[in-house]
């Protein structure tokens, strides 16, 4: 099946990013970008070095050395909101089985934990409790001083791949195909000791859980390698809805399905999830799908949004969606309400999306008829950013400051709104002129 990728051409009126700055420093793949505050971010990757950058100027603030292997997880560790003097800390976990806490203001290593038996694959900060969790082959709970509060027994070899905080001091951990719910018992006045206990084990996924996100206090969503999307109730951990299978199984026999599954695994695995209050945005293979939680169905999609797998997506406040992919580009989409019904058939579910043959077309048509009464949406490509020469691993949206992308080509690119930058430069120019006092220009 060959479906062409939507292209936009060179004229992109709505694309505000008309200035870029290449930030060099990394010597290997850059995989992680973490925002520290409103103007700083950290980058980390396979070279084991963490860089701190100024997102406004592109200035390299610090170069943090301490890990000997590639970085496996990064997270910001914000100070508790009550705290007066804000300390900006970041946690980094590496394949050298250490976790290091860094001070972003001084660029110094605050502390280093080396007592891990396996590589820490994910880090989560529970800000309410002021503790952080590390997930590897077991789950450990740490306080700010880096005391080990409690830990689980050895889980599996594969270990925890994703962690998410749930209400009532619960934690959902993706361990292979299973989703395990832990409850954290914090120290109270009576008992000084912390504890973490396994509450429930959910085994609904057929394959490894790749993505796990919180939608709101009531809901969280998981996505698996074989394209299952499950919406869970965050309080009682029951399945609220699920979409399983991003291929059209109705048209194929089971044997074909098996083949298809092996062939297209990459194309249907849910690499990344993002959400706002209404919708969950799933990066599925090369495509992007918008799943409406209320309607419990996919309301818009781009089956081939990119030339290759989408690695990361994020929703912007202005109904825009960003996606980056292995093809080295980042695309800006806009979720638009459709006025005419005839424009694009919106499938009722994932099943109808891979159109083969007549039967499918008919199905589509029938589907369309049934949907006529509903509001329809579409994802419109409004711009693409091409700069990296290979896969864009991740991006970070900095609001007005712009956008940061990191890539396999060792580079980080800062994308900026050229108009705004020009304005800012003018502003600083006149400030400088005023500072110089006499407006008599000299170098």
């Amino acid at each position, binding site marked *: 099946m060959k479906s062409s990728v939507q292209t936009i051409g*060179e004229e992109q009126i709505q*694309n505000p990013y008309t200035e*870029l700055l290449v930030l*060099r420093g990394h010597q290997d793949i850059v995989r992680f970008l973490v925002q520290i505050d409103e103007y700083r971010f950290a980058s980390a990757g396979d070279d084991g070095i963490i860089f701190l950058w100024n997102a406004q100027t592109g200035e390299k603030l610090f170069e943090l050395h301490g890990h000997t292997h590639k970085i496996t997880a990064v997270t910001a560790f914000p100070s508790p909101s009550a705290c007066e003097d804000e300390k900006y800390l970041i946690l980094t976990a590496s394949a050298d089985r250490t976790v290091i806490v860094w001070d972003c203001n001084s660029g110094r290593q605050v502390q280093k934990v080396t007592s891990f038996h396996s590589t820490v694959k994910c880090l989560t900060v529970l800000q309410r409790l002021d503790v952080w969790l590390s997930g590897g082959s077991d789950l450990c709970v740490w306080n700010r001083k880096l005391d080990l509060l409690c830990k689980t027994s050895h889980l599996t070899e594969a270990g925890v791949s994703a962690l998410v905080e749930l209400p009532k001091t619960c934690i959902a951990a993706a361990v292979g195909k299973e989703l395990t719910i832990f409850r954290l018992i914090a120290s109270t006045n009576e008992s000084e000791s912390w504890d973490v206990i396994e509450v429930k084990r959910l085994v609904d996924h057929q394959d490894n859980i790749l993505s796990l996100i919180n939608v709101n206090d009531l809901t969280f969503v998981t996505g698996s390698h074989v394209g299952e999307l499950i919406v869970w109730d965050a309080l009682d951990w029951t399945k609220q809805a699920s979409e399983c299978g991003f291929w059209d199984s109705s048209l194929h026999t089971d044997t074909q399905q098996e083949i298809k599954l092996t062939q297209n695994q990459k194309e249907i695995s849910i690499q990344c999830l993002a959400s706002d209050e209404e919708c969950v945005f799933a990066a599925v293979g090369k495509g992007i799908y918008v799943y409406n939680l209320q309607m419990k169905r996919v309301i818009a999609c781009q089956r081939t949004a990119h030339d290759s797998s989408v690695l990361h997506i994020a929703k912007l406040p202005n109904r825009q969606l960003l996606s980056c992919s292995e093809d080295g580009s980042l695309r800006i989409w806009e979720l638009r309400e459709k006025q005419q019904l005839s424009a694009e058939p919106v499938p009722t579910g994932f099943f109808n999306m891979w159109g083969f043959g007549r039967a499918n077309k008919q199905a589509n048509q029938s589907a369309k008829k049934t949907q006529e009464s509903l509001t329809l949406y579409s994802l419109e490509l409004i711009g693409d950013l091409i700069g990296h020469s290979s896969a864009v691993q991740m991006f970070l949206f900095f609001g007005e400051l712009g956008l940061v992308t990191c890539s396999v080509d060792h580079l980080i690119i800062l994308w900026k709104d050229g108009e705004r930058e020009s304005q800012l430069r003018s502003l600083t120019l006149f400030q400088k002129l005023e500072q110089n006092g006499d407006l008599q220009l000299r*170098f």
Partner: protein
Amino acid sequence: MISAPDVVAFTKEEELEEEAYDEPPLPEEYSVPLYPFATYGANPWSKLSGSKFPRDFILISEFSEQVGPQPLLTIPDDAKVSGTFDLNYFSLRIMSVDYQASFVGHPPGCAYPKLNFVEDSKVVLGDSKEGAFAYVHHLTLYDLEARGFVRPFCMAYISTDEHKIMQLFQELSAEFSKASECLKTGNRKAFANELEKKLKDLDYTRTVLHNETEIQKKANDKGYYTTQAIEKANELASVEKSIIEHQDLLKQIRSYPYRKMKDSDFHPYEPECAPDQANASFDLDSTTSHHDEPGETHLYARLPPYTPKLIKAKSAKCFDKKLKTLEELCDIYFFTQTVDQLNQIERTFRGDVCYLLTNQINRALLKQQTIVNFLFEDVSVLDEKPAEKHLAGCQGCPQDTVNTKSLEEFPIPKVLISLGSYKSSVESVPIKMDPEMEDPQELKVSDPPAEDHQENLEYLDADIKGSISSGESIEVLGTEKSAPVLTKSESQASLPISSSPHMVRNKAVSGRTISEDSIEVLSTCPSESLIPEDFKASYPSAINEETYADDEEGGIHFSPSLTPDNMEEREGRSEQEHLLQVDSACCIGKESPTFLEPLPDLGRKHCDDDGVVSIPPQPYRQADQGLHVNFSDYLSHDGVPGGLLSYEPDPHYLLSSRDVSKISLDECSDSTSYMSSAASTCSDRSPSPAHPISHFNERHKKKAGQNALRFIRQYPFAHPAIYSLLSGRTLVVLGEDEAIVKKLVTALSIFVPNCSAYTKPVKHWVTSPLHIMDFQKWKLIGLQRVGSPARASMLHSLTRYSRYVSILDADSKTLRCPLYKGTLVPRLADHRTQIKRGSTYYMQVQSALTQLCSKAFLYAFCHHLHLPINEAEVEESIANRRMNFLKLQLGLVNEDVKIVQYLAELLKLQYLQEPGRGATPQLRFDYVPSFLYKI
């Protein structure tokens, strides 16, 4: 002194000066016509038919006591230079105008012969029969064997253009003074040497005579003196007297520099271009030790002892005795230095006066545009020594006080000139000061800068006299010794700016080289059926050359609008630039003779200099040699020393059409490989902020101009290509043949705005696939079209990044780039231009770009265009105002707006850039569709 009846000399300064200004100007019939041969041809730049020599040259003549006036050498040292011009005759002429040949010998009331330290005299004279005009610089050198110990010499700058001599009088005077001072310094040293030898001889003779007398006394016991003995005694007495005389002379000559220090207008010879200085700029650390006694190490390392000779009682001054040559008189080292300087002078003043003056004005104007210069100008040329900056600043502000105060009273601003650069490294040692002076070195270091400054101040005031006598063939038009007390306004009035020459426009219209019909626009996008018409519209069929020219003049605001204050400052500055330019160029000029083969020279010199320095400082010499080796290593490693490249010592080379070497230039104009490969090595290194951009030298400019001219004639899509460059969109020149690609890159590079003062964003030749970083760094790239295996990745990267680049395919002659419909570029690159010479076109482009820069400057620095006038104002209305300004006030059409915006953005970045940090080049781009143009 031989006097000429038609010579009027202004030897007396003050009275004549004031009279001259009280008097009404001369009636027209008495004044010298501006272009004496203007009637012969309409073009004043054409070769003057009356002249017998093809180009300006420098003549050194001597008034020999044996044969009278005789020419010694010409610079350039070439028989062709003087042509049929009678050097002997002219020598007679110029040597006859020496007013100051002063009495040397026994002045009344003085027991011993007194050396008279004669000032040089500077006159301008003309010989209208010969069609020759000359700046003549008289000087006297000392020679023990000469009559009155003096030998009168003169150096003359001879030109067919009287106007040139008059206009450039100050510069000529300054330059020749330097050369003269160099000669005289060497001469004093040689003279002192000679005296010392003579003293030794005399001493020896005295001893011998004394011994003889003693022997005679012993042999003769009779108690009375024989005639022989009396003779001997007389002889001894005369030797004694001679010794005292000579000792006195020696004392006088040695005390000369010391005495002259007190004189305000003393201008000690400072070899700015001495090898040590050149070294110093490259290797500061090593020179600190090296600088102490450099001259010594050079010249006086090994001194064989002098063996005194017996002097015959009657060393008759006979006429068949051979007089010393100039080399002998001045010490070979100083002589070669002087010749080098004179060569430099010749090169500096080569070309038409109009060009020289325009160049000066140009530089002066450019200096005022400090903010925008980096975009297109050759900053390295404008880069001045820090010392000079101070000086200029000083001249600018306290002008009035300086002028009104007498020079002696003027507080000496010692800080003005960096000591290091002016410190004389040669003279500080060779000439021994008075033995009483404890620390001549220190004195040297502290005083000369002040003097230099004052000298400059004096030139500011110095004035050129209009010609008064125009009687017969020789007219003396002015002397330099005229006006230390001129008031400011007077000196302005005398500056003949209003007569700035107007170009004579050649109105001949040549046929078109390219028919418009051959332009064809192919498109890649589906929505532009209109394009061909639009594109054609950018070639207006009739361009009114004249209005265009007027337009341009109006935009630039040339000299007529300069205020008097500016004028004065400008004059002062431009003169300095001139000096400086010579200096820097001088370094290079010196490089070969003094650096690369310093040793043979050394050997020869050592023999001459006995008696001056008694202890040869061996260790220094070692260090010195080490340095030389290092330096030449540096040169050879680098191939093209980036910093040096810009100092091509020959800025006016191109203008003199009679240049012999021009032919070779034209011959090689087709093979760019040499030039551009040199340039490419430069640009490879260019990101290092240590060197300013080594832009084109003149030759390169000409080449680039020629290629650009060819480009705009050959390629009908030159306009969008140039637009790409001017708007900051990287242009990739793709091709298989390196030479062709590099040629195109060279041609187009004149349109590339620099991103900062230190990086030229041009890459002449790349063979690997391009990357996003390349577009950030380079704005013009020559890219190799490679064979099949690598081709895919290269083309892939080009298509991938196609939104950032315009692609000029040199092989298939296509261009893929955004549409351009503005009016700026057609003016800049008119394929029907009448301009034929590369350098002319280069200058035209430069002037158009300067105009563009000023627009960008206005746009970037207009407060209300970027910031709200009141707080309530919304961004939208500011944007409207901005657009209105660009379109209405600056008259920009369509895409021209983007050019100015881009340049303004560069200006802002440059202005905001903190000095310590390197620029972080942003890549700015637009999402605009590209089109494919074909021939």
